């Protein structure tokens, strides 16, 4: 990752260069050398920047970044015991760094590529956290490289049975389910959506089989081991939620692939498992239809949302859903004035709704009211940075700065300063369009 000079006080142009969507330059490609007879140890390939001293870091100087020394190397549950390694400000890069060090303590990680290794549930959890953080940081290529030694997550050394002395009598895979989800979701961010879909289908079948086994009175793996009713119910619930998670991923992936027919079908089938998410899901499907341009079908879904929330009888919730959806329909009919009114109505019920305030401001721009729109967004960011220092809001704000004034760069830089005071290292400065 290239580091940037700190901005000079005398108004020289800010030098912020963090290429978020590409892997840091200077990284050697990860070579998977497999030692004969032993499994290659997974290796951390994402060195975390050693010298970071751009504006944000300097301004934040005193806030105290989490340090490895301060957290301790007891890997198990370090979050609960020692306080989060990444604080409220999402110091995700620091957290990635930390996982690397903790893995070193497990004999894995930096410089251990190709050496024989043994996994434990703890080390795999650490790997999961690390890979999840890399994904969150959009460092997809790094995540993919680090996932590579794990293969398809079904190698023998990832099973309890491989370590009979460490886990006597335990059976099954040590790989956390969430790590499998991550592994399946990752390829789609690298342009390999079909591969994601294949993996997710595989996971769906496993979840479905386990659920069928449980419902037919067997144990998860289909054996006739007796489980108590209580455990069975808990297990059914767990696997149902996992099935839903996988189905969500499939639908999201299909949506990314623009296969709207299948995506809508899967979102609809999730409603069966998660009835309490019905209004959100139906609204989401409605928005998919708006995206395609099929407003009539979208309206039908939005009507279903109204019925669904009415039967729930939550007044405020009902109105938020209804008004929000109505606003999107107006928007799709090119009626920005009514759309703006509906978003404003949401704010009457729920004044702190960041989506409604942002969207209302966007509508104002389409109505030719740039100054007002800008004023509102700026006000929001200043009053409630926690809620509004969000990529999407800042992107809109900078877009409007560019339209409004020849001095947009100064204004953007002011935003950057606001961001650097609050946000963590995971913040994507690209949305400020500073180049």
């Amino acid at each position: 990752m290239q580091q940037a000079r700190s901005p000079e006080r005398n108004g020289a142009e800010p030098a912020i260069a963090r290429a978020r969507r590409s892997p840091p330059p200077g990284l050697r490609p990860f070579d998977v050398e497999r030692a004969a007879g032993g499994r290659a140890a997974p290796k951390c390939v994402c060195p975390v920047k050693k010298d970071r001293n751009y504006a944000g870091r300097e301004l934040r100087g005193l806030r105290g970044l989490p340090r490895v020394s301060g957290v301790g190397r007891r890997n198990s549950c370090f979050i609960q015991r020692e306080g989060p390694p990444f604080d409220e400000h999402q110091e995700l890069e620091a957290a990635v760094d930390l996982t690397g060090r903790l893995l070193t303590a497990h004999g894995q990680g930096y410089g251990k590529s190709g050496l024989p290794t043994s996994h434990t549930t703890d080390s795999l959890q650490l790997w999961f956290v690390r890979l999840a953080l890399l994904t969150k940081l959009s460092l997809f290529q790094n995540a993919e490289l680090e996932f590579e030694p794990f293969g398809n997550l079904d190698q023998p050394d990832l099973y309890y049975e491989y370590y009979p002395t460490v886990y006597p009598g335990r059976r099954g895979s040590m790989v956390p389910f969430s790590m499998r989800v991550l592994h399946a979701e990752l390829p789609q961010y690298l342009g390999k959506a079909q591969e994601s879909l294949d993996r997710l289908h595989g996971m769906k079948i496993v979840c479905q089989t386990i659920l069928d086994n449980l419902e037919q009175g067997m144990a998860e793996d289909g054996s006739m081991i007796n489980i108590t009713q209580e455990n069975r119910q808990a297990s059914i619930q767990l696997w149902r939620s996992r099935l839903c998670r996988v189905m969500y991923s499939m639908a999201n992936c299909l949506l990314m692939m623009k296969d709207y027919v299948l995506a809508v079908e899967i979102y609809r089938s999730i409603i069966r498992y998660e009835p309490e998410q019905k209004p959100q899901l139906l609204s989401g499907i409605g928005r998919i239809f708006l995206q395609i341009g099929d407003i009539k079908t979208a309206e039908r879904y939005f009507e279903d949302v109204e019925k669904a929330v009415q039967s729930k009888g939550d007044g405020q919730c009902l109105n938020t859903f209804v008004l929000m959806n109505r606003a999107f329909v107006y928007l799709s009919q090119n009626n920005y004035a009514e759309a703006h009114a509906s978003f404003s109505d949401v704010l009457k019920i729920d004044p702190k709704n960041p989506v409604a305030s942002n969207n209302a401001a966007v509508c104002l721009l389409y109505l030719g009211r740039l100054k007002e729109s800008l004023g509102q967004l700026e006000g929001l960011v200043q009053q409630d940075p926690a809620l509004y220092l969000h990529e999407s809001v800042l992107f809109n704000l900078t877009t409007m700065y560019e339209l409004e004034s020849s001095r947009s760069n100064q204004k953007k830089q002011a935003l950057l300063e606001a961001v650097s005071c609050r946000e963590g290292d995971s913040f994507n400065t690209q949305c400020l369009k500073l180049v």
Partner: protein
Amino acid sequence: MDVNQAKQEQLLALKVMRLTKPTLFTNMPVTCEDRDLPGDLFGRLMKEDPSTIKGAETLTLGEMLTLPQNFGNIFLGETFSSYISVHNDSPQVVKDILVKADLQTSSQRLNLSASNSAVAELKPECCIDDVIHHEVKEIGTHILVCAVSYTTQTGEKLYFRKFFKFQVLKPLDVKTKFYNAESDLSSVTDEVFLEAQIQNITTSPMFMEKVSLEPSMMYNVSELNTVVSGDDGASTFGKMSYLQPMDTRQYLYCLKPKPEFAEKAGVIKGVTVIGKLDIVWKTNLGERGRLQTSQLQRMAPGYGDVRLSLEMIPDTVNLEEPFDITCKITNCSERTMDLVLEMCNTCSIHWCGVSGRQLGKLSPSSSLSLPLRVLSSVQGLQSISGLRLTDTFLKRTYEYDDIAQVCVVCPYMNPES
């Protein structure tokens, strides 16, 4: 958009932004289970993220609107909308500001400004805003020309222009095919079927809101793109009425000449105007486009001087059993004919009756019905051929082969086979 900067030092700045529809922000869920190492941390991060859907955080399609990122593509039939903002960058008040926005195409220049009157004064840090709309009706290079003229405090008149160039692309590829249905047993009119192949050649999915045929005055049209079951008709294209990029869809229409033209149906000749296709589509968040094809023309099938059509024929007949057919003979020429009918057998079709008989005189545009009897000596699908009409006035012979097909079956079960 290409920008040509004015070189002179100006007090006002002009900014232009194309207003395509905003997009919905999508987020990227990273989750874990409670018993995993991060506990509820990832879940909390997602709940706190303002762009997620509360209660269904793993749903990626959010509700947060983001402004268009770039100029994008613009297609014929879409509406070009643009924000034009003139901002006073200087510390002084500027007077008599006139902002003009013109769109220059290869063939014409259009004025798009909402108002053509000057603004009296513009204070520092203030702007004049305008949103322009224009339905794009030409393909190719378009140039948006924005001109700003104003007067400074010292009375100096200043003027500058900016040019923004963009290309208008073709959104659809439309191919049409005509199929002539010869008048059959039930109808006396000649129907024409129009197949329209519509291909989406843009890069985004397209919702086809309307694809209809506006017939010319000679025809009535019925659309054959729904499957009627009960009260409501379902589209032949299924539930999702959108076209993915590069996908093609076939629309089918049946055109019938109106009764007043139907009488002359047998004698419609040459090029006729059928009508035009009207296509309305929508894309992201209701971005609308509309195209009309030029008048579709069809070459009426030439029937020659004498047209022979079938009025009645059985579909299935028994082997070696005579069956009846009825032919209709129409004089399409402009003179009276005196016709003689000859019937020639083929290897499978055998005509019953007298060959070489006189049919009498047939005046122009009139027709006569001719019952004939025939039998087939071969099984299977057989073609009726071998009719010859000779006009004794001009000694001209017209041949009619392959006029229809019948299925010839064997009525007896052969126990040996």
